[in-house]
């Protein structure tokens, strides 16, 4: 498959070719690649894309997944509207 035609991160429009270029540029950890390309920083917060990037990076570097600085999961579990934190949902 042409890496320029494979979308790895749909939220932030990151292609497989972008990931491969970053790895070629010397990046060896997911936390840095995330901030370089914004992969995993959109609405899915990496739930869909980061496992794919991790696999590509592990394959390219020979490192184990637990050696890649896999970004931690943080709240909320899913995107949630700000009004949910107001006491009546519609507070002035």
């Amino acid at each position: 498959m042409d890496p320029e035609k494979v979308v790895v991160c749909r939220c932030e429009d990151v292609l497989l070719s972008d990931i491969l270029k970053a790895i070629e540029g010397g990046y060896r950890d997911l936390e840095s690649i995330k901030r370089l390309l914004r992969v995993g920083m959109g609405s899915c917060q990496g739930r869909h894309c980061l496992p794919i990037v991790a696999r590509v990076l592990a394959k390219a570097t020979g490192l184990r997944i637990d050696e890649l600085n896999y970004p931690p999961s943080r709240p909320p579990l899913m995107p949630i509207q700000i009004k949910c934190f107001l006491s009546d949902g519609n507070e002035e």
Partner: protein
Amino acid sequence: MIIGGGSTGLMISYYLLKKGVKSVIAERKYPGSGNTYKCATGIRASFTSREHIALMKRAIELWSELKDELGVFYERSGYLWLLSREEDLRAFKTYVSFQNEHGVPTKVIDLSEVKRLAPTIVTKDLLAAVHDPLAGKASPFDLVLQSWRFLVEKGCKVLMGVEAKKILMSGGKVLGVETSAGFIESRAVVLAAAYDTVKMLKSLNISVPIEPVPKHAFITEAYRDLFKPLIIDWSTSSYVVQTHHGNFLVGSEIPEKPGDKPLSRLEFLRKASKVWTKYFPWMKEAYLLRYWTGYYDTTPDHHPIIGPLDGLEGLYVAAGFSGHGFMMSPSVGEVMADWITEGRPKILEALNLSMSRFREGRLVKEAAVFG
């Protein structure tokens, strides 16, 4: 050798390189992984001490240079301090005149001007605001990733996943650092490791008055540009900034004890949501994507500890930025490079910020802190 690969450590390495000195950075996790990547991204000189203003005026000049030299996103989009109480307005009038005397162009503005700077804001609870047009914001991601790449290209070392274990001294002089990757010899060692600085110096029987205070922030999905300045609600110690990418980054102070483990707290989400949806009702509909915690490594006078340590030749500290480390990192890098290569900083106000001020009782005052 520099311990800590955050914005501070990287900028020290960067300005040392400008003086022809190649350094080694030991970073425990990955560059930016401490406070830098968790910060609010704001940059301002609107402080209330000569020391902060001098360091930040220089930093702001250097941020412009870094934009050109490294391609770091940086913009002078201003700060807007919202004031809703008479006593705050009175206090800020004195801060503004102090800032103006020291070359920081802040001014008190009326509500129509607030509306012009943030068109969707509801101003009914406000008295006035202070606008700082010299302030702005930058991308911590760009600063770390671009300076890291640049340093490595020029022959400096940035060791990732290497933990400094112990500083070795002999006859009052630094010999080097014992790390998880072996001994690294160096005649000059800079501790730019945030709260880890305190732990490292403890093993040399030096106590450093820095306390890590947990802080909270969340970020929403991205919107089109709605306002440029970083906005502070002074009475609730809260801020909101729209990032370069369009997301809203929100912080708000809730009671926390120094040294406590930072936990996710509904109290924070409730307070921050209440404060900012009052000013921006449309924000009720915005989706929150991520909530994280970090620290303000706070000193008794909210000023950093930068400079050498008395009686320990070759050992330097740059830590305790009390929430202002990222914004200050370029001028701190320059000051530390001066200390190391010339034995004295060119910014004279920085002389007041070494460790000895605590022993000598020369604390510096700062009133304009929030978040």
